[in-house]
């Protein structure tokens, strides 16, 4: 199931493997790859899917109009975790990164509405902030029935985070606890 040879080694092996028609596939692949990532910037990232934590190399190029194009993602051959290998999910990470299916702008659906409405960030964030404030004010308990100071907000929940960078997750915890939230979850249980 797993190749005993590293990808590099594989390419070397491939270099002497000529097809019956005399066409050297590996050479052709190498040339194509060279052209595709030539002059590209290499960045180091990590697979977004499972917690094996496979290291990825991402190749990008900046066009003259400033647009950054993602050319290729591959396993980092230097990683003690994956040694360059990837599963189908990691290997297709590029398609998750660049997709026509992304949410394009903040969307709002009013109570009872049958469609989304496109809204500005300003509208969306004001809406979120005023909802948080109103629900917090309505459901905040400073002292419980036994006279204990509890300072908790009972009517708002936050869930998410398994796809956050750790630092984002930490900030989420800090801000939510700062608001007094007690309902706080991510994917660890589910």
């Amino acid at each position, binding site marked *: 199931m797993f190749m005993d040879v590293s990808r590099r080694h594989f390419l070397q092996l491939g270099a002497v493997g000529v097809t019956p028609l005399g066409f050297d596939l590996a050479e052709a692949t190498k040339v194509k790859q060279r052209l595709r990532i030539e002059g590209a910037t290499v960045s180091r990232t*990590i697979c977004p899917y499972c917690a094996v934590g496979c290291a990825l190399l991402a190749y990008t190029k900046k066009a003259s109009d400033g647009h950054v194009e993602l050319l290729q993602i591959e396993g980092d051959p230097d990683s003690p975790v994956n040694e360059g290998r990837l599963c189908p999910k990691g290997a297709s990470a590029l398609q998750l990164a660049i997709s026509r299916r992304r949410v394009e702008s*903040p969307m709002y659906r009013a109570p009872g509405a049958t469609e989304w409405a496109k809204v500005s960030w300003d509208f969306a964030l004001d809406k979120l902030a005023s909802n948080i404030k109103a629900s917090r004010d309505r459901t905040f308990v400073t002292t419980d029935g036994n006279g204990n100071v509890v300072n908790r907000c009972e009517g708002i929940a936050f869930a998410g985070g398994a796809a*956050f960078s750790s630092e984002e997750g930490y900030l989420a915890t800090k801000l939510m606890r700062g608001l007094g939230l007690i309902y706080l979850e991510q994917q660890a249980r589910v």
Partner: protein
Amino acid sequence: MVSLAATFGRGAMTNHWRDIRHADLILINGANPAEAHPVGFQWMMRAKLDRGAKMIHADPRFTRTSAVADKYLRIRTGTDVAYFGGLINHVLRNNLYHDEYVRMATNAAFVVAEGYSFDEGMFNGFDPQRKTYNAAEWAYETGPDGFVVLDIDHPRSVLNLMRAHYNRYTPEMVERITGIPRTDFEEVAKLVGETGKPDKVMTIVYAVGLTHHTTGVQLIRSGALLQLLLGNMGRPGGGMNAERGHANIQGNTDHAISWDILPGYLRIPAPGQQNIDDYLARSASKKLRPNSLNFFGENYRKFLVSLLKTWYGESARADNDFAFHHLPKPAADASWLSIFDAALRGRMEGLMLSGMTATSIGPDSNQVLQALSNLKWLCVMDSYATTSSEFWRAPGIEPSNVQTEVLLLPATHWIEKDGSFTNSGRWVQWKEQVLPPEGEARHDHWMLAEAFMRVRTLYERDGGTYPSPVLQLTMPYRDPRRPELDEIAQEINGRDLGTGQRLATFAALKDDGTTTSGDWIYCGHYPESGNLAKRRDGIQDPARNDPTGMGFYPNWAWSWPLNRRVLYNRASADPAGKPWDPTRPGIAWDGAKWTGDVPDYPATANPADQASPLPFIMTSEGMGRLFSNGVADGPFPEHYEPVESPVDNPLHPHQSATPVAHIYLPDRFGSRREFPYVATSYRLTEHEHYVTQHVDQLVALQPEAFVEVPAELAREKGIATGDAVRVSSKRGKLEVRAVVTSRLGPLTIDGKKVYQIGIPIHWGFVGINTGQHWLANALTPFVGDASSRTPEFKAFLVNIEKL
């Protein structure tokens, strides 16, 4: 993670991916790493190919993991305690445990206080009114010196109680409960029993196939007990290796996106704890033996005060108990199930979901949809539409009837931001920003920071309920509305407030408000020399980068705590400090200090010195806990049936399921008559939960929802591969195609033929290919484990019919 913390002191995979190659025997339970963690699985294959390790796969389904295992055991889902219990019994009865290790590193010799009992499926300390145990009644006997009495031969020593407890788990009983034929079980027991020697190591690998049960915590703990008995904890090639399913589930558990903890596994305070002293009295453990280091308990105050100082800055002072009063104090469980339960009862107004779709995750998706409709508002932050952002127009729902106000905010991807991911093996790997944010997408932390700052402005302008924590929370970033992850990483690491320097270790944290640290277990990852998670000294130069040859690669990224690669590694060496197996050393005493991996032990504590600490520095015992009161459902793991089960518990039919499972909605369970088949849910290689429904290549590889049906049952029902079938539970239905397979055979459970149906979870009504009744979690039960409230996704009852 509750079970590992209750047993060893920390809730995380004890070893790391590459380390698994050092194992001689690999037990895989509740996991299918060949398909769910394929690249991690290479290290199990390396153990097999390079050192002839044997691999045993116990699973309801014959998967690609089974295909390369040396032995496949078809086990009924949710019965792994019986399997591990049987192995424990085999090891104890035949004295195959690693005696010297057990005495050195476990609480086997601790004497349990009088009053302990286990009878007809019930432990002592049960409160029938509240349906909970009082775990404080599972205590040790203390001597006149105030410490626990040790006597391994005492009738109430942990070891002897354990013998009595597992005595019932005979191979016949294992067969009756699990369906594993006795001869197969005995063959495996023989292999397992051989690893209780210093020169043999076994590892246990598991995933959510163990956690997703009402007995999930105990399923894992039963494996952990076996590992302690055989002397496999703390050793390279050993351990309890939890494979986590999302890129950064570990990091964000560490940073406490979890109702019951604060960063670094500090407990959330409870009502009645009016100050830090009250809190510590309930949260920080006290040492039970004179030379127990009890590191966590002894330093709890430093970690908490440094956190409060980080969060509340100038407002956290010694004279106001460092603003302890600002911390929210929940009265009851506030975990995942409780969120939706509160919403169903009309007590939840708003929900923020970030990269997590409640509708698909369930359990009991129909109830979750109802819960979402009960909210005043929902805010979904995601890169893609989800079954939660679109819930108000899910098939069968009339949007005009749904009064919930919904926001969908476009979030950036992992590749459009930097920051670190912590993998299962606790390796904190920094990633670079590769692309700028696409279109209008924003980072989650920018949305949250901006929303928070706007809430702050509203409180400044209009006032409101208890505004102080909102006004006083520190936002010490160059732009508080757009903090950089690098700034936050530094905050997590912490500083000496006197010098302003970042700290190199949590040993430097103080309880007087002169240090900060946002998460003490990450203290040291970003010292003055720079961000160690960025390090990439990898395998191309092993001579330089892997000095011990053990594959620790200490300068590749950073692992918590303090860059230790194998947790509890003091136990990898014998009492004198010599590695149990010199060919696979973890750490070794060189006469002056410990060498090898970063020691999980004081670096210069001489093993010859009687006063040197006991090996497990994080527990109050100083030992690994065979007996533990850190769990809610019993000090020893016991087999209980899933809440929906095809049989009564052969061990104690009158107490079939655990008495302390948390049942929210009592009328949503089905009977075996109506729903005669066992079902279990799982992932496929090509998908990751639900987000991959937006990835063309992966949808092309696995395009459509299906269920796997055992061939014999399919014949009975006239179902052929490709037929449309309806699978139903008391809670909902799934209408998909059938794949008829011999990978799911029938089992004989307590003399009765039992079929198991396999249900991949990935589909719904949002994505490239969708279907009206494709939500797998419409079937799963809304019930949680007593300790962790993890839902029982992996064992429930269904019926199946051809459409």
